């Protein structure tokens, strides 16, 4: 009897392993599906609700596994872990310029994006200075960026002081700490591919 059970157990092991592997695959796919359809950073709680688990540690472990898998695939997409334990699936920046025109959503054109880059890099920066550097058309850019929630404007005497928002930091997967963010940006700007 005992022998039989042992034999049974030995036979079961690979099946159990297989089942476990299948379960893991399915959980990773679910995380991928969630990140794909959301198109925005999702936190561990939301990801956990998709996996039907309350264990944040488990979700984080799986999400990082998926992130690594994407890294190893070495393709156009990437999964990033943002601060606040959030994960996001997005296109690698280096491919953006080549496929931007296929996006059907209204996107910011190059002009406002240059103004945004300058504000992010120089912040906190006076509106006057931004206009002096970028030209008078930058008034419209500032308005647009403000409307999109990417920058804030704070009255200071006759001029305004501009800063990027935490939404901006999240959107780009950058640090909320301005000094760190600037270092990150510097790295981005030095990459020839980010143009």
């Amino acid at each position, binding site marked *: 009897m005992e022998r039989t059970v042992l034999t049974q157990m030995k036979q079961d092991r690979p099946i159990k392993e297989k089942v476990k592997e299948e379960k893991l695959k399915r959980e990773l796919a679910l995380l991928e599906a969630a990140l*794909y*359809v*959301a*198109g*925005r950073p999702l936190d561990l709680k939301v990801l956990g609700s998709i996996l039907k688990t309350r264990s944040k540690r488990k979700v984080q472990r799986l999400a990082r596994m998926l992130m690594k898998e994407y890294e190893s695939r070495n393709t156009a997409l990437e999964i990033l872990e943002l601060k606040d334990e959030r994960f*996001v*699936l*997005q*296109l690698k*920046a280096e491919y*953006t*310029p080549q*496929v*931007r025109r296929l*996006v059907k959503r209204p*996107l*910011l054109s*190059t002009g406002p*994006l*240059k103004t*945004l*880059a*300058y504000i*992010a*890099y*120089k912040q906190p920066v006076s509106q006057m*200075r931004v*206009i*002096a*550097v*970028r*030209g008078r058309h930058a008034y419209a850019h500032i308005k647009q960026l403000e409307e999109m929630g990417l920058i804030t404007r704070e009255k200071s005497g006759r001029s305004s002081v501009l800063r990027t928002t935490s939404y901006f930091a999240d*959107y*780009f*997967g950058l640090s909320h700490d301005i000094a760190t963010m600037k270092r990150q*940006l510097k790295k*981005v*700007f030095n990459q020839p591919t*980010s*143009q």
Partner: protein
Amino acid sequence: MPRLSPASKPFYMHPPWNILFDFRQLEKIVPWKVNVAYLLLSFLEEMEKRGEVDFRASGVALDSSAFIYLMKSKLLLKLEEPPASPPKKILDFLPPPLFLPLRHELTSTTIQHLLQVLDEVLKGEKLLPTKRKTEPILPPPSDILPALDVYLMEIEAQMEELFLQLSQSVKGKGIINFSKFAAGKKRIDVVRIFILLLFLAQRGKVSLWQSEDLGEIYITVGESSHGTDSFNPDETG
């Protein structure tokens, strides 16, 4: 150097040259009223004539002249701020555009949503006041033209017939009242006769006149120089 004594002032302290040497006066003058060139030339001539070359007085005269010219210039040119030069572009590190990361995002709009709102739009469309355009609705040309042709073809014959009737009524030549001629006829026929009369009058076959507004119309038949016996259709054109 002229010797100055209270009794004998030098010549340039007299008019007209004193303007150049009295500084209190100088500030009050209207510069346009001063002929500087004349003052300086005559001052030099007077000095030469007198043989008293006074360099200090010459210097003062020159200085005053310059002052008068300055006053004129100031009046001519309103002192304005020089036009602002275009704001100097500050040379600063200009980072490349920061392209937003592209993320695919499923959208929640389904065909059911589309049809729901379509329902609302179409209901709204039915409620719209059906503002029919008030453009005149023209009947198709085919409905008008044949009738017009018949009328135009017949008008010649009708004119000829009416003229004959009129001629008979007046026995060749003479005058007849319109009311008498149209008596006993239907209203529509009266109108037709009147229109035909206008055509005949236009061709000079008859003359029409009226004694007063809304009064009797008199028809004179055969007074015109035109022949009474032939109708040339071309004349209608």
